[in-house]
Protein backbone atom coordinates (compact mmCIF):
# COMPACT_ATOMS: atom_id res chain seq x y z
CA UNK A 1 0.00 0.00 0.00
CA UNK A 2 1.14 3.51 -0.68
CA UNK A 3 -0.39 6.95 -0.70
CA UNK A 4 0.29 10.01 -2.81
CA UNK A 5 0.21 13.45 -1.21
CA UNK A 6 -0.03 16.79 -3.03
CA UNK A 7 2.23 19.44 -1.54
CA UNK A 8 2.88 23.12 -1.87
CA UNK A 9 6.24 23.52 -0.16
CA UNK A 10 9.60 25.27 -0.20
CA UNK A 11 11.15 28.29 1.51
CA UNK A 12 8.74 30.62 -0.31
CA UNK A 13 5.98 27.97 -0.56
CA UNK A 14 6.59 28.32 -4.27
CA UNK A 15 7.03 24.65 -5.20
CA UNK A 16 4.43 22.02 -6.10
CA UNK A 17 5.04 18.29 -5.97
CA UNK A 18 3.57 14.86 -5.36
CA UNK A 19 5.11 12.71 -2.64
CA UNK A 20 4.57 8.97 -2.83
CA UNK A 21 4.91 7.35 0.57
CA UNK A 22 4.88 3.56 0.90
CA UNK A 23 3.33 2.30 4.10
CA UNK A 24 5.99 1.69 6.77
CA UNK A 25 8.80 3.13 4.65
CA UNK A 26 10.40 5.20 7.40
CA UNK A 27 14.03 6.09 6.78
CA UNK A 28 14.40 4.51 3.35
CA UNK A 29 16.37 6.12 0.54
CA UNK A 30 14.14 8.74 -1.06
CA UNK A 31 14.00 9.19 -4.82
CA UNK A 32 13.50 12.71 -6.16
CA UNK A 33 12.52 13.22 -9.79
CA UNK A 34 13.39 16.48 -11.53
CA UNK A 35 11.66 18.09 -14.53
CA UNK A 36 12.71 16.93 -17.99
CA UNK A 37 12.98 20.09 -20.05
CA UNK A 38 9.82 22.19 -19.66
CA UNK A 39 7.48 19.24 -19.12
CA UNK A 40 5.66 19.46 -15.79
CA UNK A 41 6.33 16.97 -13.03
CA UNK A 42 4.41 14.04 -14.57
CA UNK A 43 7.28 13.72 -17.06
CA UNK A 44 7.31 13.00 -20.80
CA UNK A 45 4.37 10.72 -21.59
CA UNK A 46 3.83 10.36 -17.80
CA UNK A 47 7.24 8.71 -17.32
CA UNK A 48 7.69 10.20 -13.85
CA UNK A 49 4.28 9.03 -12.64
CA UNK A 50 4.98 5.47 -13.80
CA UNK A 51 8.49 5.57 -12.30
CA UNK A 52 7.51 6.91 -8.88
CA UNK A 53 4.57 4.53 -8.50
CA UNK A 54 6.72 1.54 -9.45
CA UNK A 55 9.35 2.63 -6.91
CA UNK A 56 6.69 3.21 -4.25
CA UNK A 57 5.52 -0.38 -4.80
CA UNK A 58 9.13 -1.49 -4.24
CA UNK A 59 9.26 0.41 -0.94
CA UNK A 60 10.94 3.72 -1.87
CA UNK A 61 9.47 7.09 -0.90
CA UNK A 62 9.45 9.43 -3.90
CA UNK A 63 8.86 13.05 -4.80
CA UNK A 64 8.14 14.26 -8.32
CA UNK A 65 8.02 18.03 -8.30
CA UNK A 66 8.32 21.17 -10.37
CA UNK A 67 11.43 23.31 -10.01
CA UNK A 68 10.96 27.07 -9.62
CA UNK A 69 9.13 28.59 -12.63
CA UNK A 70 8.40 25.20 -14.22
CA UNK A 71 5.07 23.36 -14.23
CA UNK A 72 2.94 24.58 -11.32
CA UNK A 73 5.83 26.03 -9.33
CA UNK A 74 6.39 29.76 -9.09
CA UNK A 75 9.51 31.87 -8.79
CA UNK A 76 10.86 32.07 -5.26
CA UNK A 77 11.23 35.83 -5.43
CA UNK A 78 14.89 35.67 -4.38
CA UNK A 79 17.99 36.91 -6.15
CA UNK A 80 19.58 33.53 -6.81
CA UNK A 81 21.25 32.40 -10.02
CA UNK A 82 19.49 29.51 -11.78
CA UNK A 83 22.06 27.03 -10.42
CA UNK A 84 21.68 28.37 -6.88
CA UNK A 85 17.90 28.19 -7.29
CA UNK A 86 18.04 24.56 -8.42
CA UNK A 87 20.17 23.69 -5.37
CA UNK A 88 17.78 25.58 -3.08
CA UNK A 89 14.75 23.85 -4.62
CA UNK A 90 16.36 20.43 -4.19
CA UNK A 91 17.21 21.33 -0.58
CA UNK A 92 13.51 22.10 -0.05
CA UNK A 93 12.56 18.83 -1.76
CA UNK A 94 14.91 16.76 0.39
CA UNK A 95 13.58 18.45 3.54
CA UNK A 96 10.01 17.64 2.53
CA UNK A 97 10.75 13.97 1.90
CA UNK A 98 12.72 13.85 5.14
CA UNK A 99 9.69 15.23 7.04
CA UNK A 100 7.18 12.97 5.32
CA UNK A 101 9.14 9.69 5.25
CA UNK A 102 12.22 10.17 7.43
CA UNK A 103 14.59 9.98 4.46
CA UNK A 104 18.19 10.90 5.19
CA UNK A 105 19.76 9.96 1.87
CA UNK A 106 18.49 10.52 -1.62
CA UNK A 107 18.77 9.37 -5.19
CA UNK A 108 18.13 11.98 -7.89
CA UNK A 109 16.59 11.09 -11.24
CA UNK A 110 16.81 13.42 -14.21
CA UNK A 111 16.37 13.29 -17.97
CA UNK A 112 18.28 15.74 -20.15
CA UNK A 113 18.14 19.16 -18.44
CA UNK A 114 16.88 17.19 -15.43
CA UNK A 115 20.11 15.18 -15.51
CA UNK A 116 22.09 18.38 -15.75
CA UNK A 117 20.30 19.86 -12.73
CA UNK A 118 20.64 16.58 -10.81
CA UNK A 119 24.36 16.57 -11.65
CA UNK A 120 24.85 20.04 -10.17
CA UNK A 121 23.19 19.06 -6.90
CA UNK A 122 24.77 15.59 -6.74
CA UNK A 123 28.21 17.15 -7.10
CA UNK A 124 27.74 19.37 -4.08
CA UNK A 125 25.18 17.94 -1.66
CA UNK A 126 26.35 15.17 0.71
CA UNK A 127 22.80 13.92 1.25
CA UNK A 128 22.70 12.69 -2.36
CA UNK A 129 23.84 9.04 -2.36
CA UNK A 130 22.97 8.13 -5.91
CA UNK A 131 21.86 9.54 -9.23
CA UNK A 132 20.25 8.35 -12.42
CA UNK A 133 21.30 10.50 -15.36
CA UNK A 134 19.33 10.00 -18.58
CA UNK A 135 20.95 11.64 -21.60
CA UNK A 136 23.03 13.90 -19.38
CA UNK A 137 26.40 15.41 -20.18
CA UNK A 138 28.19 14.00 -23.23
CA UNK A 139 30.79 15.12 -25.73
CA UNK A 140 31.46 14.33 -29.38
CA UNK A 141 34.62 12.24 -29.15
CA UNK A 142 36.97 11.07 -31.90
CA UNK A 143 35.30 7.67 -31.64
CA UNK A 144 31.90 9.32 -32.15
CA UNK A 145 33.11 11.09 -35.28
CA UNK A 146 34.64 7.92 -36.74
CA UNK A 147 31.47 5.95 -36.08
CA UNK A 148 29.35 8.75 -37.48
CA UNK A 149 31.30 9.81 -40.58
CA UNK A 150 33.16 6.68 -41.72
CA UNK A 151 30.07 4.72 -42.78
CA UNK A 152 28.94 7.78 -44.73
CA UNK A 153 32.30 8.13 -46.49
CA UNK A 154 32.23 4.56 -47.76
CA UNK A 155 28.55 4.52 -48.71
CA UNK A 156 28.43 4.44 -52.56
CA UNK A 157 24.74 5.38 -52.58
CA UNK A 158 25.48 8.58 -50.69
CA UNK A 159 28.25 9.53 -53.15
CA UNK A 160 25.95 8.77 -56.09
CA UNK A 161 23.24 11.05 -54.67
CA UNK A 162 25.78 13.81 -54.12
CA UNK A 163 27.09 13.55 -57.68
CA UNK A 164 23.54 13.56 -59.02
CA UNK A 165 22.84 16.80 -57.19
CA UNK A 166 26.06 18.36 -58.52
CA UNK A 167 25.07 17.35 -62.04
CA UNK A 168 21.76 19.12 -61.64
CA UNK A 169 19.69 16.04 -60.98
CA UNK A 170 17.03 15.64 -58.37
CA UNK A 171 17.34 18.33 -55.73
CA UNK A 172 17.97 17.30 -52.19
CA UNK A 173 14.83 17.16 -50.12
CA UNK A 174 15.22 19.72 -47.38
CA UNK A 175 14.43 18.26 -43.97
CA UNK A 176 12.69 20.55 -41.56
CA UNK A 177 15.02 21.75 -38.84
CA UNK A 178 14.57 19.75 -35.65
CA UNK A 179 12.84 21.65 -32.90
CA UNK A 180 15.18 22.05 -29.93
CA UNK A 181 12.77 20.77 -27.31
CA UNK A 182 15.31 19.54 -24.81
CA UNK A 183 18.96 20.34 -24.56
CA UNK A 184 21.83 19.92 -22.14
CA UNK A 185 24.03 22.99 -22.02
CA UNK A 186 27.66 22.02 -22.37
CA UNK A 187 30.09 22.14 -19.46
CA UNK A 188 33.88 21.80 -19.58
CA UNK A 189 34.73 18.12 -19.92
CA UNK A 190 37.41 18.19 -17.21
CA UNK A 191 34.87 19.70 -14.83
CA UNK A 192 32.34 16.95 -15.53
CA UNK A 193 34.99 14.23 -15.08
CA UNK A 194 36.11 15.83 -11.81
CA UNK A 195 32.49 15.90 -10.64
CA UNK A 196 31.96 12.20 -11.44
CA UNK A 197 35.26 11.34 -9.74
CA UNK A 198 34.26 13.30 -6.67
CA UNK A 199 30.83 11.66 -6.58
CA UNK A 200 32.12 8.08 -6.61
CA UNK A 201 34.96 9.12 -4.29
CA UNK A 202 32.48 9.97 -1.59
CA UNK A 203 30.55 6.74 -2.10
CA UNK A 204 27.82 7.77 -4.51
CA UNK A 205 26.35 5.26 -6.94
CA UNK A 206 25.68 6.42 -10.51
CA UNK A 207 23.51 5.02 -13.27
CA UNK A 208 23.95 6.62 -16.69
CA UNK A 209 21.42 5.66 -19.35
CA UNK A 210 21.90 7.29 -22.76
CA UNK A 211 19.51 6.82 -25.66
CA UNK A 212 19.63 6.66 -29.42
CA UNK A 213 17.68 9.93 -29.37
CA UNK A 214 20.93 11.88 -28.85
CA UNK A 215 22.73 10.36 -31.83
CA UNK A 216 23.80 13.84 -32.89
CA UNK A 217 26.44 13.66 -30.12
CA UNK A 218 26.43 10.12 -28.65
CA UNK A 219 26.35 6.88 -30.62
CA UNK A 220 27.93 3.93 -28.79
CA UNK A 221 28.28 2.31 -25.39
CA UNK A 222 32.05 2.84 -25.61
CA UNK A 223 31.47 6.59 -25.64
CA UNK A 224 30.90 6.71 -21.88
CA UNK A 225 34.56 5.79 -21.42
CA UNK A 226 35.64 7.99 -24.32
CA UNK A 227 33.86 10.98 -22.77
CA UNK A 228 34.63 10.57 -19.10
CA UNK A 229 37.68 8.30 -18.89
CA UNK A 230 38.46 5.63 -16.33
CA UNK A 231 35.93 6.80 -13.74
CA UNK A 232 33.35 5.03 -15.93
CA UNK A 233 35.04 1.73 -15.00
CA UNK A 234 34.54 2.36 -11.27
CA UNK A 235 32.32 -0.29 -9.71
CA UNK A 236 30.00 2.44 -8.42
CA UNK A 237 29.17 3.46 -11.99
CA UNK A 238 26.69 1.57 -14.16
CA UNK A 239 26.16 2.60 -17.77
CA UNK A 240 23.66 1.57 -20.40
CA UNK A 241 23.33 2.68 -24.00
CA UNK A 242 19.85 2.11 -25.41
CA UNK A 243 20.45 2.70 -29.12
CA UNK A 244 16.95 1.75 -30.21
CA UNK A 245 15.04 4.19 -28.00
CA UNK A 246 14.27 7.85 -28.53
CA UNK A 247 15.18 10.67 -26.15
CA UNK A 248 11.91 10.76 -24.23
CA UNK A 249 10.89 7.06 -24.29
CA UNK A 250 7.71 7.56 -26.26
CA UNK A 251 7.10 3.81 -26.69
CA UNK A 252 5.64 2.13 -23.64
CA UNK A 253 7.83 -0.97 -24.04
CA UNK A 254 10.96 1.20 -23.99
CA UNK A 255 9.65 2.97 -20.90
CA UNK A 256 8.96 -0.32 -19.15
CA UNK A 257 12.50 -1.54 -19.87
CA UNK A 258 13.93 1.75 -18.60
CA UNK A 259 11.90 1.56 -15.39
CA UNK A 260 12.85 -2.07 -14.81
CA UNK A 261 16.50 -1.07 -15.24
CA UNK A 262 16.18 1.77 -12.75
CA UNK A 263 14.31 -0.43 -10.27
CA UNK A 264 16.91 -3.18 -10.55
CA UNK A 265 19.79 -0.74 -10.12
CA UNK A 266 18.13 0.79 -7.05
CA UNK A 267 17.43 -2.56 -5.42
CA UNK A 268 21.05 -3.65 -5.93
CA UNK A 269 22.56 -0.42 -4.66
CA UNK A 270 19.96 0.85 -2.17
CA UNK A 271 18.03 -2.23 -1.01
CA UNK A 272 15.03 -1.09 1.03
CA UNK A 273 15.02 -2.49 4.55
CA UNK A 274 11.28 -2.86 4.22
CA UNK A 275 11.49 -4.78 0.92
CA UNK A 276 8.83 -7.41 0.58
CA UNK A 277 6.36 -5.64 2.83
CA UNK A 278 4.82 -3.76 -0.05
CA UNK A 279 2.50 -4.84 -2.77
Amino acid sequence: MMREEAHRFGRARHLVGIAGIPEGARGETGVIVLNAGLVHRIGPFRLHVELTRQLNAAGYPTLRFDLSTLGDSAASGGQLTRTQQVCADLDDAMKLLSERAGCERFVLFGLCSGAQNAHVVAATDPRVSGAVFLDGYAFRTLGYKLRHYLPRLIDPGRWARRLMRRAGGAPATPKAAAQPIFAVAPAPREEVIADFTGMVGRGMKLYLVYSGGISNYFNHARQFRECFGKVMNHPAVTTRYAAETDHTYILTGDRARLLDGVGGWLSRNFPPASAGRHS
Partner: protein
Amino acid sequence: MRLDAEMPFFFGPDSGLFGMYHAPAFPPRRAMLMCPPLGQDLIRCHRLYRQLAQALAEEGMAVLRFDYYGTGDSAGDSAEVNWERCVSDATTATAELRRRAGVDRVIAFGARLGGSIALTAAERARFSEVIAWDPVLEGERYVAELDAMQAALREDAGRFNRPRSHSDVAEQWLGFDIGETLRRQLSSLRVAPANVPTLVLDSMPASPDPRWERIVSQRGKVATIAPPTPWDDLDRLETAILSHPLIQAVTGRLKEVA
Protein backbone atom coordinates in the same frame (compact mmCIF):
# COMPACT_ATOMS: atom_id res chain seq x y z
CA MET B 1 0.40 36.46 -7.24
CA ARG B 2 -0.73 34.86 -3.97
CA LEU B 3 0.94 31.44 -3.96
CA ASP B 4 -1.34 29.97 -1.31
CA ALA B 5 -4.26 30.85 -3.57
CA GLU B 6 -3.17 27.98 -5.83
CA MET B 7 -3.54 24.79 -3.84
CA PRO B 8 -2.82 21.28 -5.09
CA PHE B 9 -4.95 18.52 -3.57
CA PHE B 10 -6.53 15.13 -4.15
CA PHE B 11 -10.28 14.62 -4.18
CA GLY B 12 -13.03 12.35 -5.48
CA PRO B 13 -13.40 8.57 -5.19
CA ASP B 14 -10.59 7.19 -2.99
CA SER B 15 -9.03 10.66 -3.18
CA GLY B 16 -7.70 9.57 -6.55
CA LEU B 17 -8.24 12.74 -8.60
CA PHE B 18 -5.63 15.49 -8.64
CA GLY B 19 -6.80 19.08 -8.61
CA MET B 20 -5.31 22.57 -8.50
CA TYR B 21 -7.68 25.17 -7.11
CA HIS B 22 -7.13 28.82 -7.99
CA ALA B 23 -8.91 30.98 -5.43
CA PRO B 24 -9.64 34.62 -6.32
CA ALA B 25 -8.80 37.41 -3.90
CA PHE B 26 -12.48 38.05 -3.08
CA PRO B 27 -15.49 35.74 -2.78
CA PRO B 28 -16.37 34.80 -6.37
CA ARG B 29 -19.77 34.97 -8.09
CA ARG B 30 -18.94 32.26 -10.60
CA ALA B 31 -16.36 29.62 -11.25
CA MET B 32 -14.65 27.83 -14.12
CA LEU B 33 -13.88 24.15 -14.48
CA MET B 34 -10.97 23.53 -16.83
CA CYS B 35 -11.31 20.12 -18.49
CA PRO B 36 -7.94 19.00 -19.83
CA PRO B 37 -7.52 17.19 -23.14
CA LEU B 38 -6.22 13.62 -23.13
CA GLY B 39 -2.90 12.05 -24.06
CA GLN B 40 -0.03 14.23 -25.20
CA ASP B 41 -2.36 17.22 -25.64
CA LEU B 42 -2.73 17.29 -21.83
CA ILE B 43 1.01 17.74 -21.40
CA ARG B 44 1.27 20.23 -24.24
CA CYS B 45 -1.53 22.38 -22.82
CA HIS B 46 -0.47 22.31 -19.16
CA ARG B 47 1.31 25.68 -19.22
CA LEU B 48 -1.50 27.38 -21.12
CA TYR B 49 -4.14 26.02 -18.74
CA ARG B 50 -2.18 27.41 -15.80
CA GLN B 51 -1.81 30.80 -17.48
CA LEU B 52 -5.52 30.93 -18.27
CA ALA B 53 -6.46 29.86 -14.74
CA GLN B 54 -4.29 32.60 -13.25
CA ALA B 55 -5.72 35.20 -15.62
CA LEU B 56 -9.29 34.20 -14.67
CA ALA B 57 -8.52 34.14 -10.94
CA GLU B 58 -7.16 37.68 -11.27
CA GLU B 59 -10.50 38.63 -12.85
CA GLY B 60 -12.27 37.29 -9.75
CA MET B 61 -13.23 33.77 -10.83
CA ALA B 62 -12.62 30.60 -8.86
CA VAL B 63 -10.93 28.05 -11.12
CA LEU B 64 -10.31 24.33 -10.82
CA ARG B 65 -7.83 22.46 -13.00
CA PHE B 66 -7.84 18.70 -12.58
CA ASP B 67 -6.69 15.39 -14.09
CA TYR B 68 -9.06 12.53 -15.02
CA TYR B 69 -8.48 9.04 -13.65
CA GLY B 70 -5.53 7.49 -15.49
CA THR B 71 -4.09 10.88 -16.56
CA GLY B 72 -1.67 13.44 -15.15
CA ASP B 73 -1.14 13.13 -11.40
CA SER B 74 -4.42 11.30 -10.79
CA ALA B 75 -4.55 7.64 -9.80
CA GLY B 76 -4.75 4.94 -12.45
CA ASP B 77 -2.68 3.78 -15.40
CA SER B 78 -2.80 5.38 -18.83
CA ALA B 79 -4.31 2.17 -20.26
CA GLU B 80 -7.26 2.59 -17.85
CA VAL B 81 -8.46 5.91 -19.25
CA ASN B 82 -12.16 5.54 -19.97
CA TRP B 83 -14.42 8.07 -21.69
CA GLU B 84 -17.38 7.52 -19.36
CA ARG B 85 -15.09 7.88 -16.36
CA CYS B 86 -13.67 11.14 -17.78
CA VAL B 87 -17.19 12.58 -18.08
CA SER B 88 -18.01 11.35 -14.59
CA ASP B 89 -14.75 12.82 -13.22
CA ALA B 90 -15.65 16.19 -14.77
CA THR B 91 -18.96 16.04 -12.89
CA THR B 92 -17.19 15.09 -9.65
CA ALA B 93 -14.74 17.95 -10.16
CA THR B 94 -17.60 20.40 -10.73
CA ALA B 95 -19.15 19.43 -7.39
CA GLU B 96 -15.77 19.90 -5.71
CA LEU B 97 -15.41 23.32 -7.36
CA ARG B 98 -18.89 24.41 -6.25
CA ARG B 99 -18.10 23.33 -2.70
CA ARG B 100 -14.76 25.12 -2.56
CA ALA B 101 -15.89 28.31 -4.31
CA GLY B 102 -19.30 28.51 -2.66
CA VAL B 103 -21.01 29.31 -5.97
CA ASP B 104 -23.47 27.43 -8.15
CA ARG B 105 -22.67 29.02 -11.50
CA VAL B 106 -19.91 27.04 -13.21
CA ILE B 107 -18.63 27.59 -16.74
CA ALA B 108 -16.62 24.79 -18.36
CA PHE B 109 -13.61 25.19 -20.63
CA GLY B 110 -11.83 22.47 -22.54
CA ALA B 111 -9.36 22.03 -25.39
CA ARG B 112 -9.74 19.21 -27.96
CA LEU B 113 -11.12 16.14 -26.14
CA GLY B 114 -11.38 18.31 -23.02
CA GLY B 115 -13.91 20.41 -24.91
CA SER B 116 -15.74 17.26 -25.98
CA ILE B 117 -15.89 16.08 -22.37
CA ALA B 118 -17.18 19.49 -21.21
CA LEU B 119 -19.94 19.41 -23.84
CA THR B 120 -20.89 15.84 -22.93
CA ALA B 121 -20.94 16.56 -19.19
CA ALA B 122 -22.82 19.87 -19.55
CA GLU B 123 -26.24 18.63 -18.52
CA ARG B 124 -25.13 16.29 -15.76
CA ALA B 125 -22.73 18.85 -14.27
CA ARG B 126 -25.19 21.75 -14.79
CA PHE B 127 -22.68 24.01 -16.52
CA SER B 128 -24.04 27.47 -17.23
CA GLU B 129 -21.91 27.70 -20.37
CA VAL B 130 -19.32 25.69 -22.28
CA ILE B 131 -16.29 27.16 -24.02
CA ALA B 132 -14.77 24.49 -26.25
CA TRP B 133 -11.49 25.07 -28.07
CA ASP B 134 -11.22 22.95 -31.23
CA PRO B 135 -13.33 20.18 -29.67
CA VAL B 136 -13.36 16.72 -31.21
CA LEU B 137 -16.91 16.09 -32.41
CA GLU B 138 -16.54 12.98 -34.57
CA GLY B 139 -14.52 10.28 -32.84
CA GLU B 140 -14.11 7.97 -35.80
CA ARG B 141 -12.13 10.47 -37.83
CA TYR B 142 -10.09 11.46 -34.76
CA VAL B 143 -9.16 7.82 -34.06
CA ALA B 144 -8.09 7.40 -37.68
CA GLU B 145 -5.87 10.50 -37.37
CA LEU B 146 -4.26 9.17 -34.19
CA ASP B 147 -3.68 5.77 -35.80
CA ALA B 148 -2.07 7.47 -38.80
CA MET B 149 0.22 9.55 -36.57
CA GLN B 150 1.17 6.47 -34.55
CA ALA B 151 2.01 4.62 -37.79
CA ALA B 152 4.15 7.56 -38.93
CA LEU B 153 5.85 7.65 -35.54
CA ARG B 154 7.08 4.06 -36.08
CA GLU B 155 9.42 5.21 -38.80
CA ASP B 156 10.07 8.76 -37.67
CA ALA B 157 13.74 9.24 -38.55
CA GLY B 158 13.90 12.36 -36.41
CA ARG B 159 13.13 10.23 -33.35
CA PHE B 160 14.48 6.72 -33.95
CA ASN B 161 17.77 5.58 -35.48
CA ARG B 162 15.91 2.71 -37.15
CA PRO B 163 12.21 2.14 -37.81
CA ARG B 164 10.58 0.25 -34.97
CA SER B 165 8.57 -2.93 -35.31
CA HIS B 166 4.79 -2.86 -35.62
CA SER B 167 4.48 -4.61 -32.27
CA ASP B 168 6.66 -1.92 -30.63
CA VAL B 169 4.09 0.76 -31.47
CA ALA B 170 0.91 -1.30 -31.13
CA GLU B 171 -1.93 -0.38 -28.75
CA GLN B 172 -0.52 3.08 -28.11
CA TRP B 173 -1.23 6.61 -29.23
CA LEU B 174 1.68 9.02 -29.21
CA GLY B 175 3.30 7.92 -25.96
CA PHE B 176 0.37 6.42 -24.09
CA ASP B 177 -1.03 2.91 -23.73
CA ILE B 178 -4.56 2.77 -25.11
CA GLY B 179 -7.07 0.32 -23.75
CA GLU B 180 -9.52 -1.40 -26.09
CA THR B 181 -12.41 0.24 -24.24
CA LEU B 182 -11.22 3.79 -24.88
CA ARG B 183 -10.56 3.00 -28.53
CA ARG B 184 -14.08 1.65 -28.90
CA GLN B 185 -15.60 4.58 -27.00
CA LEU B 186 -13.78 7.20 -29.06
CA SER B 187 -14.47 5.40 -32.34
CA SER B 188 -18.21 5.70 -31.73
CA LEU B 189 -18.07 9.19 -30.22
CA ARG B 190 -20.42 11.75 -31.70
CA VAL B 191 -20.66 14.75 -29.42
CA ALA B 192 -24.17 16.15 -29.11
CA PRO B 193 -24.91 19.88 -28.73
CA ALA B 194 -25.04 21.05 -25.13
CA ASN B 195 -28.31 22.61 -24.03
CA VAL B 196 -26.46 25.65 -22.68
CA PRO B 197 -24.78 28.62 -24.35
CA THR B 198 -21.76 27.28 -26.20
CA LEU B 199 -18.78 29.15 -27.57
CA VAL B 200 -16.50 27.26 -29.94
CA LEU B 201 -13.04 28.74 -30.31
CA ASP B 202 -11.78 27.63 -33.69
CA SER B 203 -8.06 27.50 -34.44
CA MET B 204 -8.16 24.53 -36.80
CA PRO B 205 -6.68 24.88 -40.30
CA ALA B 206 -9.16 26.36 -42.78
CA SER B 207 -11.58 23.83 -44.21
CA PRO B 208 -14.32 24.14 -46.86
CA ASP B 209 -16.58 21.82 -44.83
CA PRO B 210 -18.65 23.20 -41.97
CA ARG B 211 -17.17 21.95 -38.72
CA TRP B 212 -19.16 23.30 -35.83
CA GLU B 213 -22.69 23.97 -37.11
CA ARG B 214 -24.08 20.85 -35.53
CA ILE B 215 -23.26 21.97 -31.96
CA VAL B 216 -23.70 25.74 -32.24
CA SER B 217 -26.86 25.97 -34.35
CA GLN B 218 -29.17 26.47 -31.38
CA ARG B 219 -27.40 28.23 -28.53
CA GLY B 220 -23.89 28.81 -29.67
CA LYS B 221 -21.44 30.78 -31.68
CA VAL B 222 -18.00 30.35 -33.15
CA ALA B 223 -15.02 32.66 -32.78
CA THR B 224 -11.88 32.18 -34.79
CA ILE B 225 -8.44 32.28 -33.22
CA ALA B 226 -5.31 32.81 -35.29
CA PRO B 227 -2.82 31.39 -35.98
CA PRO B 228 -3.94 27.75 -36.41
CA THR B 229 -2.86 25.44 -33.56
CA PRO B 230 -0.51 22.61 -34.63
CA TRP B 231 -2.41 19.85 -32.80
CA ASP B 232 -1.55 17.09 -35.26
CA ASP B 233 2.03 17.87 -36.28
CA LEU B 234 4.28 14.93 -35.35
CA ASP B 235 7.37 17.14 -35.53
CA ARG B 236 5.93 19.35 -32.77
CA LEU B 237 4.57 16.58 -30.62
CA GLU B 238 6.61 17.67 -27.61
CA THR B 239 6.28 21.41 -28.09
CA ALA B 240 4.06 23.22 -25.61
CA ILE B 241 0.92 24.82 -26.99
CA LEU B 242 0.84 28.44 -25.95
CA SER B 243 -1.69 30.96 -27.19
CA HIS B 244 -2.15 34.49 -25.98
CA PRO B 245 -5.13 34.94 -28.36
CA LEU B 246 -6.83 32.00 -26.65
CA ILE B 247 -6.43 33.60 -23.22
CA GLN B 248 -7.74 36.89 -24.58
CA ALA B 249 -10.71 35.17 -26.22
CA VAL B 250 -11.74 33.34 -23.04
CA THR B 251 -11.24 36.25 -20.66
CA GLY B 252 -12.98 38.55 -23.15
CA ARG B 253 -15.97 36.23 -23.41
CA LEU B 254 -16.31 36.03 -19.64
CA LYS B 255 -16.26 39.81 -19.34
CA GLU B 256 -19.07 39.95 -21.93
CA VAL B 257 -21.32 37.69 -19.90
CA ALA B 258 -20.28 38.84 -16.42
